[in-house]
């Protein structure tokens, strides 16, 4: 670290801001009451996002309203577009022009954005997309909570594509994980999805925003050297090519067609293969995994009943685990904060000790499929049980405790 630089907080731990306060890395902060949606806007602004394009939809609209309130006055760009597709299209355009951008939506709106999520993935454009999940399918329950976009978040757009999906469970975490989402998006040159939900988005909690100087900010790597040699999809040591902004003097072509290292369309099978594998491989290095994967473990060391839960449901799960511990049951909570890609090593380590694995989620069994897949690698395979609820109410601590006790 350069002398005189403010000490930065470490984003890899569960609540970097709380940890920084605890360890004295920072001693001050801004104390605010924020909803999850407000907190996402604050995180985006603090990490330097200056572009928002969106379309109103419940229960994500506060993100657009927040962006409308702040961005124009900070030299940024805000536009409520004609539809959800235009929102993500304009966001990708603005990102290619050099801005850090985000767009938020929910349910039907996220479905509409899918094609262009794929465009951003194959053209490797940094972009943060927020899905404040509501109950679906279709119009479903616009004000009701749901967690039924788990598989859509991973596989919603057509074709093989890499994606990072982050599932915060509180306003504080919405703030901190939005910062991380932008940093990952810039560092790995790709779209990152924040998979929030109606409850996390709407509930308010006290949040501590750290001093701006303590926030680690990652900006996309820009090309250096002669513009003639610039390869927007070239091979680099870490698999992430540099990205120039339109107008920076490093002209390039961006297309959703299969393209070569120079960005121009290609039909060469070897080049198509190289590029598609590279955009996946850039998330596979040890360093990338350390950056991207993030899982909270709560009393899992000796747990023989493990609850795996994310987002709003993880908060009920934590209460249930505490109550179970008080009743003398060795229960633990495994909470993926990065939902995709799966933190396979951590999950397998914790599941490897468990006799029973409970996956509560507000859908008919989606993340449970992934946990069941991973559990299949273990022998003996632990029992994997889902608690699935789609009646628009939350899964309560009592619902989970009952299953822990069986």
């Amino acid at each position, binding site marked *: 670290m350069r002398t005189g630089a403010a000490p930065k907080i470490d984003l890899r731990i569960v609540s970097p801001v709380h940890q920084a306060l605890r360890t004295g890395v920072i001693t001050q902060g801004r104390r605010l009451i924020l909803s999850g949606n407000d907190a996402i806007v604050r995180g985006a602004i603090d990490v330097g996002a200056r572009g928002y394009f969106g379309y109103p939809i419940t229960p994500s609209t506060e993100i657009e309203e927040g962006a409308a309130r702040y961005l124009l006055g900070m030299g940024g760009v805000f536009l409520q577009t004609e539809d959800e597709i235009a929102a993500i299209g304009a966001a990708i355009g603005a990102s290619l022009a050099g801005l850090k951008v985000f767009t938020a939506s929910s349910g039907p709106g996220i479905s509409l954005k899918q094609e262009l999520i794929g465009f951003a993935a194959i053209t490797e454009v940094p972009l943060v997309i927020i899905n404040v999940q509501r109950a679906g399918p279709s119009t479903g329950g616009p004000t009701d909570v749901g967690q039924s976009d788990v598989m859509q978040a991973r596989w919603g757009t057509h074709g093989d594509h890499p994606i990072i999906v982050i599932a915060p469970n509180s306003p504080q975490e919405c703030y901190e994980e939005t910062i991380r989402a932008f940093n990952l998006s810039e560092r790995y040159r790709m779209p990152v999805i924040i998979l929030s939900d109606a409850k996390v988005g709407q509930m308010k909690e006290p949040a501590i925003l750290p001093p701006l100087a303590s926030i680690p900010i990652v900006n996309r790597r820009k090309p250096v050297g002669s513009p003639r040699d610039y390869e927007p999809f070239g091979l680099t040591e870490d698999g992430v090519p540099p990205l120039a902004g339109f107008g920076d003097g490093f002209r390039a072509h961006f297309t959703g067609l299969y393209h070569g290292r120079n960005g121009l369309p290609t039909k060469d099978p070897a080049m198509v293969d190289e590029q598609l594998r590279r955009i996946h491989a850039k998330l596979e290095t040890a360093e990338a995994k350390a950056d991207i994967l993030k899982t909270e473990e709560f009393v899992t060391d000796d747990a023989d009943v493990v609850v795996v839960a994310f987002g709003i449901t993880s908060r009920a799960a934590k209460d249930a685990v*505490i109550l179970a511990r008080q009743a003398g049951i060795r229960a633990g909570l495994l909470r993926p904060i990065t939902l995709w890609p799966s933190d396979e090593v951590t999950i397998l380590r914790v599941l490897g000790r468990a006799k029973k694995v409970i996956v509560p989620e507000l859908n008919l069994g989606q993340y449970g499929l992934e946990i069941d897949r991973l559990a299949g690698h273990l022998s003996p395979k632990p029992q994997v049980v889902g608690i699935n609820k789609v009646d628009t109410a939350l899964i309560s601590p009592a619902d989970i405790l009952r299953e822990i006790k069986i």
Partner: protein
Amino acid sequence: MRIRIGPFMRPAMKKSIWCEGCGLGNMSSIITSALVSTVSKRLEVDPNTREGLERIKNNIAFVSGIGCTSRMPGQLDFNTLHTAHGRSLAFATGIKLARPELTVALAAGDGDIFAIGGNHFIHTARRNIDMTLIVYNNKSYGMTGAQHSPTSPLGEIGTSAPYGVFEPPFNVVNLALGAGATFVAQGALTTSQEHLDQAEALIVAALGHKGFSLVNLIGTCHTGWGARNRRAEAFRYRRYLEEKVMKLESWKALPPDEQGKYFPLGIIHQDDSRPDFQSSKPYLDAIERAKKAVAGTQELLEDITLVEQDPLAVYPRTSVRFAGSGGQGVLTAGETDLYAAFLSGKSGVFIKNYGPEARGGGAYSQVTISDGEIHFPQAENLEVLVALTQEAYDKYRGEVSAQGKIIVNSTAVKEFYGDARVIASPIGDLLAREVRPPKKEQGINVLALALTMGLFNLAPRGSVETAVKKYFSDKNLKMNLRALDVGYKEAERQRGLI
């Protein structure tokens, strides 16, 4: 000035995918020439010098969607973007907003821009964003093999209209005008050099116009649509177009029922009086207001010490619900309550109801406070309900625990059903008599909040006062502090009664 377009081509893309004889080749040269001459003038550089050439190329963003036409940007050595079907205008909007100094041009086919991209077309025209859209309008989908498009003539044959097109085409010019485009021109790519020169002049004029400009170029697809409509030969198809187009002046002189048979060529509409989106007064005014607003919301850093908690302990929690009608500020009451608790080192969660349920007399905010971390945000039972209206009381009293308390605004709530948990306080009367707000019910939330906090000692009064000062700093603070005082006094009186 004739521009040599060779230096603007990407060497690897010299061989295009287009059919021999297609007008797209002409269009590509014309657009390049028009872009280079316009931008070199704008930047005051010479395209024949190396430095001038670089600067011109760097200052152009050329964007497209999907289709034969949309392959054009890939050939040209500008900042180029080949987007998804129909979406080019959306992407270009993002580029132009982020980098206003760039000259942004788009090439599109008729299916791309008027069918799947129709919504973006009308809204970009409406906003008058400064960019130039050049459409190669061959009235069909070429790349997918001669299907009919929104501009295909009635009765002609396409692969998806084997018995003749039976849906009427768009009048593209009227569509653009109706959407508010400030520059609309039409040209044709025929065999005539005059038409090609005119097309280039139209694009130059469009690029020179500050605002959204459309140049609709009537073109051909001899291998696709032409082959199915007895115009399979490129030259003959282009000759055929010459009979379909007409100079604007001559067209205007036609009787109205004749006009529909021909495409007028020229600048059909140009309004330079309307500023483009990013120069428009409402946009610039909004930016100025936003700057002031943002400057006024600086948040100060405070010293913070975290209170350590036992992660495996169960801490008691208290849930308070403020319920009333929409205008009574029950949401702010809850948030102020939560902030006061936060200031005094407690944890808390705020939830609210919303949607139709929250309209009428049953809006609520609910705050759960604890010395320990709160995970599950919902409470099984309420410890305290503050009911400002009869509807709120009737609706939520069932959720209060047997040992809980219900503070009831007895000014509005007349029927208690003999509920022993009720603490009746004439909140409305106290407000009118002792706080005397300028507007009826203003301050009722602060009074009710103070009464609740005072009665149940949920946070020290100092914290409550600081919280009220924060949340009501610009909203009649004096009156609200009066309401706070009256609320605490009422809490004292009620304590005496219990």
